[in-house]
Protein backbone atom coordinates (compact mmCIF):
# COMPACT_ATOMS: atom_id res chain seq x y z
CA UNK A 1 0.00 0.00 0.00
CA UNK A 2 2.81 2.43 -0.85
CA UNK A 3 0.51 4.82 -2.67
CA UNK A 4 -2.33 5.13 -0.15
CA UNK A 5 -1.11 8.38 1.37
CA UNK A 6 -4.30 9.32 3.22
CA UNK A 7 -4.66 5.84 4.72
CA UNK A 8 -1.08 5.89 5.95
CA UNK A 9 -1.31 9.36 7.52
CA UNK A 10 -4.66 8.65 9.17
CA UNK A 11 -3.38 5.32 10.48
CA UNK A 12 -0.32 6.97 11.99
CA UNK A 13 -2.59 9.44 13.75
CA UNK A 14 -5.06 6.82 14.91
CA UNK A 15 -2.81 4.01 16.17
CA UNK A 16 -1.56 6.00 19.17
CA UNK A 17 -5.07 7.13 20.05
CA UNK A 18 -6.41 3.59 19.84
CA UNK A 19 -3.67 2.30 22.16
CA UNK A 20 -4.36 5.14 24.62
CA UNK A 21 -8.07 4.30 24.53
CA UNK A 22 -7.25 0.63 25.13
CA UNK A 23 -5.29 1.57 28.26
CA UNK A 24 -8.19 3.74 29.41
CA UNK A 25 -10.67 0.90 28.95
CA UNK A 26 -8.26 -1.50 30.67
CA UNK A 27 -7.48 0.47 33.82
CA UNK A 28 -10.73 2.42 34.12
CA UNK A 29 -12.84 -0.68 33.59
CA UNK A 30 -13.98 -0.78 37.21
CA UNK A 31 -15.47 2.72 36.99
CA UNK A 32 -16.76 2.80 33.41
CA UNK A 33 -17.88 0.21 30.87
CA UNK A 34 -15.13 -2.03 29.68
CA UNK A 35 -12.53 -4.33 31.12
CA UNK A 36 -9.73 -6.63 30.18
CA UNK A 37 -11.46 -8.36 27.31
CA UNK A 38 -12.58 -5.20 25.53
CA UNK A 39 -9.26 -3.48 26.17
CA UNK A 40 -7.36 -6.47 24.80
CA UNK A 41 -9.38 -6.46 21.62
CA UNK A 42 -8.94 -2.69 21.14
CA UNK A 43 -5.20 -2.97 21.75
CA UNK A 44 -4.96 -5.78 19.20
CA UNK A 45 -6.95 -3.71 16.70
CA UNK A 46 -4.26 -1.01 16.84
CA UNK A 47 -1.56 -3.47 15.76
CA UNK A 48 -3.81 -5.18 13.21
CA UNK A 49 -4.64 -1.81 11.62
CA UNK A 50 -0.92 -1.02 11.48
CA UNK A 51 -0.28 -4.42 9.91
CA UNK A 52 -2.98 -4.00 7.28
CA UNK A 53 -1.86 -0.56 6.17
CA UNK A 54 1.93 -0.85 6.52
CA UNK A 55 2.44 -4.57 5.74
CA UNK A 56 2.78 -7.49 8.10
CA UNK A 57 6.57 -7.24 8.20
CA UNK A 58 6.50 -3.73 9.66
CA UNK A 59 3.92 -4.77 12.27
CA UNK A 60 6.09 -7.72 13.28
CA UNK A 61 9.06 -5.40 13.72
CA UNK A 62 7.02 -3.51 16.32
CA UNK A 63 5.38 -6.57 17.89
CA UNK A 64 7.43 -9.69 17.09
CA UNK A 65 5.56 -12.98 16.80
CA UNK A 66 7.56 -14.68 19.58
CA UNK A 67 6.61 -11.85 21.97
CA UNK A 68 2.93 -12.22 21.07
CA UNK A 69 3.09 -15.95 21.78
CA UNK A 70 4.65 -15.24 25.19
CA UNK A 71 1.85 -12.72 25.92
CA UNK A 72 -0.81 -15.36 25.30
CA UNK A 73 0.56 -17.50 28.12
CA UNK A 74 1.63 -14.61 30.37
CA UNK A 75 -1.93 -13.31 30.80
CA UNK A 76 -3.28 -16.65 32.01
CA UNK A 77 -0.28 -16.91 34.36
CA UNK A 78 -1.02 -13.47 35.84
CA UNK A 79 -4.65 -14.42 36.40
CA UNK A 80 -3.92 -17.79 37.95
CA UNK A 81 -0.97 -16.30 39.87
CA UNK A 82 -3.26 -13.75 41.54
CA UNK A 83 -5.31 -16.65 42.84
CA UNK A 84 -2.20 -18.45 44.07
CA UNK A 85 -1.02 -15.29 45.90
CA UNK A 86 -4.29 -15.22 47.83
CA UNK A 87 -3.84 -18.95 48.56
CA UNK A 88 -0.44 -18.25 50.12
CA UNK A 89 -1.91 -15.43 52.22
CA UNK A 90 -4.24 -17.97 53.78
CA UNK A 91 -7.42 -17.06 51.91
CA UNK A 92 -9.49 -18.92 49.36
CA UNK A 93 -8.32 -19.12 45.73
CA UNK A 94 -9.03 -15.79 43.93
CA UNK A 95 -10.27 -14.18 47.17
CA UNK A 96 -8.84 -10.69 46.66
CA UNK A 97 -9.40 -9.67 50.29
CA UNK A 98 -5.99 -11.30 50.81
CA UNK A 99 -4.17 -8.56 48.89
CA UNK A 100 -4.96 -5.96 51.56
CA UNK A 101 -6.25 -7.73 54.69
CA UNK A 102 -7.02 -4.53 56.64
CA UNK A 103 -8.97 -2.90 53.80
CA UNK A 104 -10.84 -5.68 52.00
CA UNK A 105 -12.27 -3.17 49.52
CA UNK A 106 -8.77 -2.07 48.50
CA UNK A 107 -7.79 -5.72 48.16
CA UNK A 108 -10.77 -6.35 45.89
CA UNK A 109 -9.75 -3.34 43.83
CA UNK A 110 -6.13 -4.50 43.39
CA UNK A 111 -7.29 -8.03 42.67
CA UNK A 112 -9.70 -6.91 39.97
CA UNK A 113 -7.01 -4.73 38.39
CA UNK A 114 -4.50 -7.61 38.34
CA UNK A 115 -6.98 -10.11 36.99
CA UNK A 116 -8.24 -7.74 34.29
CA UNK A 117 -4.64 -7.06 33.30
CA UNK A 118 -4.17 -10.80 32.83
CA UNK A 119 -7.30 -11.07 30.70
CA UNK A 120 -6.22 -8.06 28.63
CA UNK A 121 -2.74 -9.42 27.95
CA UNK A 122 -4.05 -12.83 26.90
CA UNK A 123 -6.76 -11.40 24.64
CA UNK A 124 -4.32 -8.96 23.00
CA UNK A 125 -1.88 -11.80 22.40
CA UNK A 126 -4.45 -14.21 21.02
CA UNK A 127 -6.04 -11.66 18.67
CA UNK A 128 -2.69 -10.50 17.27
CA UNK A 129 -1.47 -14.10 17.01
CA UNK A 130 -4.58 -15.14 15.06
CA UNK A 131 -4.16 -12.16 12.75
CA UNK A 132 -0.48 -13.00 12.21
CA UNK A 133 -1.36 -16.64 11.53
CA UNK A 134 -3.94 -15.66 8.93
CA UNK A 135 -1.94 -12.88 7.31
CA UNK A 136 1.36 -14.77 7.15
CA UNK A 137 -0.01 -17.49 4.89
CA UNK A 138 0.63 -16.86 1.20
CA UNK A 139 -2.73 -15.91 -0.32
CA UNK A 140 -4.00 -17.96 -3.23
CA UNK A 141 -5.18 -14.75 -4.91
CA UNK A 142 -2.40 -12.39 -5.87
CA UNK A 143 -2.83 -8.67 -5.27
CA UNK A 144 -3.03 -7.85 -8.98
CA UNK A 145 -6.20 -9.88 -9.43
CA UNK A 146 -8.34 -7.70 -7.17
Amino acid at each position, binding site marked *: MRHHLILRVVTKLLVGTIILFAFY*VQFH*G*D*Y*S*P*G*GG*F*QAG*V*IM*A*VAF*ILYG*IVFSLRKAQQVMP*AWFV*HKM*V*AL*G*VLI*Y*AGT*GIVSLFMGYA*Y*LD*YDALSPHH*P*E*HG*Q*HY*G*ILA*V*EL*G*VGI*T*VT*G*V*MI*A*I*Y*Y*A*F*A*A*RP*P*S*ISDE*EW
Partner: protein
Amino acid sequence: MLSGVFSLLSALLFVVLDAVDVAFTEAAVGAGISTVLMLGTLALTARVEKPAAHSPTLPLFVVFVTGAALIYGTMDMPNFGSPDAPANTHVAPDYLERSPHEIGVPNVVTAILASYRGYDTLGETAVVFTAGIGVLLLLSGLRRRREDEDDAAETKDGKA
Protein backbone atom coordinates in the same frame (compact mmCIF):
# COMPACT_ATOMS: atom_id res chain seq x y z
CA MET B 1 -19.46 -6.98 5.31
CA LEU B 2 -23.07 -7.75 6.22
CA SER B 3 -22.03 -9.48 9.42
CA GLY B 4 -19.98 -6.40 10.35
CA VAL B 5 -23.00 -4.16 9.80
CA PHE B 6 -25.16 -6.59 11.75
CA SER B 7 -22.70 -6.57 14.67
CA LEU B 8 -22.63 -2.79 14.75
CA LEU B 9 -26.44 -2.65 14.75
CA SER B 10 -26.69 -5.21 17.54
CA ALA B 11 -24.11 -3.20 19.48
CA LEU B 12 -26.44 -0.21 19.19
CA LEU B 13 -29.30 -2.45 20.33
CA PHE B 14 -27.29 -3.44 23.43
CA VAL B 15 -26.68 0.25 24.20
CA VAL B 16 -30.44 0.83 24.02
CA LEU B 17 -30.90 -2.09 26.44
CA ASP B 18 -28.35 -0.44 28.83
CA ALA B 19 -25.89 -3.33 28.43
CA VAL B 20 -22.97 -1.07 27.63
CA ASP B 21 -20.26 -3.63 28.43
CA VAL B 22 -21.76 -6.16 26.03
CA ALA B 23 -22.21 -3.47 23.39
CA PHE B 24 -18.54 -2.60 23.77
CA THR B 25 -17.50 -6.20 23.20
CA GLU B 26 -19.85 -6.63 20.27
CA ALA B 27 -18.60 -3.49 18.54
CA ALA B 28 -14.92 -4.37 19.06
CA VAL B 29 -15.06 -8.10 18.34
CA GLY B 30 -18.03 -8.47 16.00
CA ALA B 31 -17.65 -5.37 13.90
CA GLY B 32 -13.87 -5.02 14.18
CA ILE B 33 -11.83 -8.19 14.52
CA SER B 34 -14.19 -10.72 12.93
CA THR B 35 -14.58 -8.60 9.82
CA VAL B 36 -10.81 -8.39 9.44
CA LEU B 37 -10.39 -12.12 10.04
CA MET B 38 -13.21 -12.88 7.59
CA LEU B 39 -11.48 -10.77 4.94
CA GLY B 40 -8.20 -12.50 5.73
CA THR B 41 -9.88 -15.87 5.27
CA LEU B 42 -11.46 -14.75 2.01
CA ALA B 43 -8.02 -13.80 0.72
CA LEU B 44 -6.81 -17.35 1.46
CA THR B 45 -9.64 -19.18 -0.27
CA ALA B 46 -10.35 -19.63 -3.95
CA ARG B 47 -12.00 -16.86 -5.89
CA VAL B 48 -14.88 -18.63 -7.57
CA GLU B 49 -17.55 -20.54 -5.69
CA LYS B 50 -18.12 -24.17 -6.65
CA PRO B 51 -21.54 -24.77 -8.28
CA ALA B 52 -24.09 -26.06 -5.76
CA ALA B 53 -24.68 -29.80 -6.06
CA HIS B 54 -28.25 -29.82 -4.68
CA SER B 55 -31.27 -27.56 -4.67
CA PRO B 56 -31.61 -24.99 -1.85
CA THR B 57 -35.25 -25.87 -1.03
CA LEU B 58 -34.60 -28.22 1.91
CA PRO B 59 -32.07 -25.95 3.68
CA LEU B 60 -34.45 -23.01 3.19
CA PHE B 61 -37.27 -25.04 4.75
CA VAL B 62 -35.06 -25.94 7.75
CA VAL B 63 -34.13 -22.29 8.20
CA PHE B 64 -37.76 -21.19 8.17
CA VAL B 65 -38.85 -23.89 10.64
CA THR B 66 -35.98 -23.03 13.01
CA GLY B 67 -36.76 -19.32 12.76
CA ALA B 68 -40.45 -19.93 13.45
CA ALA B 69 -39.55 -22.07 16.48
CA LEU B 70 -37.26 -19.34 17.84
CA ILE B 71 -39.91 -16.65 17.38
CA TYR B 72 -42.48 -18.93 19.04
CA GLY B 73 -40.03 -19.30 21.93
CA THR B 74 -39.90 -15.54 22.49
CA MET B 75 -43.66 -15.52 23.23
CA ASP B 76 -42.94 -16.98 26.68
CA MET B 77 -40.29 -14.41 27.52
CA PRO B 78 -41.19 -11.76 30.09
CA ASN B 79 -41.70 -8.19 28.90
CA PHE B 80 -38.62 -6.00 28.67
CA GLY B 81 -37.83 -4.45 32.06
CA SER B 82 -40.53 -6.45 33.83
CA PRO B 83 -39.81 -6.62 37.59
CA ASP B 84 -41.02 -10.24 37.71
CA ALA B 85 -38.49 -11.41 35.11
CA PRO B 86 -36.09 -14.10 36.44
CA ALA B 87 -33.17 -11.81 35.55
CA ASN B 88 -34.48 -9.20 38.00
CA THR B 89 -35.55 -11.49 40.83
CA HIS B 90 -32.87 -14.18 41.14
CA VAL B 91 -29.31 -13.12 42.10
CA ALA B 92 -29.15 -9.68 40.49
CA PRO B 93 -30.72 -7.70 43.39
CA ASP B 94 -28.38 -9.52 45.76
CA TYR B 95 -25.31 -8.51 43.76
CA LEU B 96 -26.53 -4.94 43.40
CA GLU B 97 -27.06 -4.69 47.15
CA ARG B 98 -23.81 -6.35 48.21
CA SER B 99 -21.23 -5.16 45.70
CA PRO B 100 -20.95 -1.46 46.84
CA HIS B 101 -19.73 -2.34 50.35
CA GLU B 102 -18.13 -5.72 49.61
CA ILE B 103 -16.22 -4.82 46.46
CA GLY B 104 -16.43 -1.04 46.36
CA VAL B 105 -16.19 -0.91 42.56
CA PRO B 106 -18.81 1.28 40.86
CA ASN B 107 -19.10 -0.89 37.74
CA VAL B 108 -21.13 -3.84 39.00
CA VAL B 109 -20.49 -5.81 35.81
CA THR B 110 -16.76 -5.74 36.48
CA ALA B 111 -17.31 -6.59 40.14
CA ILE B 112 -19.37 -9.66 39.24
CA LEU B 113 -17.11 -10.78 36.39
CA ALA B 114 -13.78 -10.40 38.12
CA SER B 115 -14.62 -11.02 41.77
CA TYR B 116 -17.84 -12.93 42.43
CA ARG B 117 -17.42 -14.93 39.24
CA GLY B 118 -13.61 -15.02 39.26
CA TYR B 119 -13.46 -18.74 38.50
CA ASP B 120 -15.71 -18.33 35.47
CA THR B 121 -13.57 -15.53 34.09
CA LEU B 122 -10.44 -17.60 34.69
CA GLY B 123 -12.06 -20.38 32.69
CA GLU B 124 -13.03 -17.88 29.99
CA THR B 125 -9.44 -16.66 29.77
CA ALA B 126 -8.30 -20.27 29.51
CA VAL B 127 -10.77 -20.78 26.65
CA VAL B 128 -9.36 -17.75 24.80
CA PHE B 129 -5.85 -19.11 25.47
CA THR B 130 -6.80 -22.55 24.13
CA ALA B 131 -8.41 -21.04 21.03
CA GLY B 132 -5.27 -19.04 20.35
CA ILE B 133 -3.03 -22.08 20.78
CA GLY B 134 -5.32 -24.09 18.50
CA VAL B 135 -5.22 -21.53 15.71
CA LEU B 136 -1.44 -21.23 16.08
CA LEU B 137 -1.00 -24.99 15.83
CA LEU B 138 -3.26 -25.22 12.77
CA LEU B 139 -2.18 -22.15 10.83
CA SER B 140 1.20 -20.85 11.93
CA GLY B 141 4.57 -21.82 10.57
CA LEU B 142 5.40 -24.45 13.17
CA ARG B 143 5.78 -27.12 10.51
CA ARG B 144 8.00 -24.82 8.49
CA ARG B 145 10.18 -24.30 11.55
CA ARG B 146 10.51 -28.06 12.00
CA GLU B 147 11.58 -28.40 8.37
CA ASP B 148 14.14 -25.64 8.93
CA GLU B 149 15.45 -27.56 11.95
CA ASP B 150 15.66 -30.70 9.82
CA ASP B 151 17.61 -28.72 7.25
CA ALA B 152 19.89 -27.35 9.97
CA ALA B 153 20.40 -30.85 11.36
CA GLU B 154 21.25 -32.14 7.90
CA THR B 155 23.82 -29.41 7.30
CA LYS B 156 25.29 -30.09 10.74
CA ASP B 157 25.53 -33.78 9.88
CA GLY B 158 27.13 -32.86 6.59
CA LYS B 159 29.75 -30.77 8.36
CA ALA B 160 30.46 -33.46 10.90
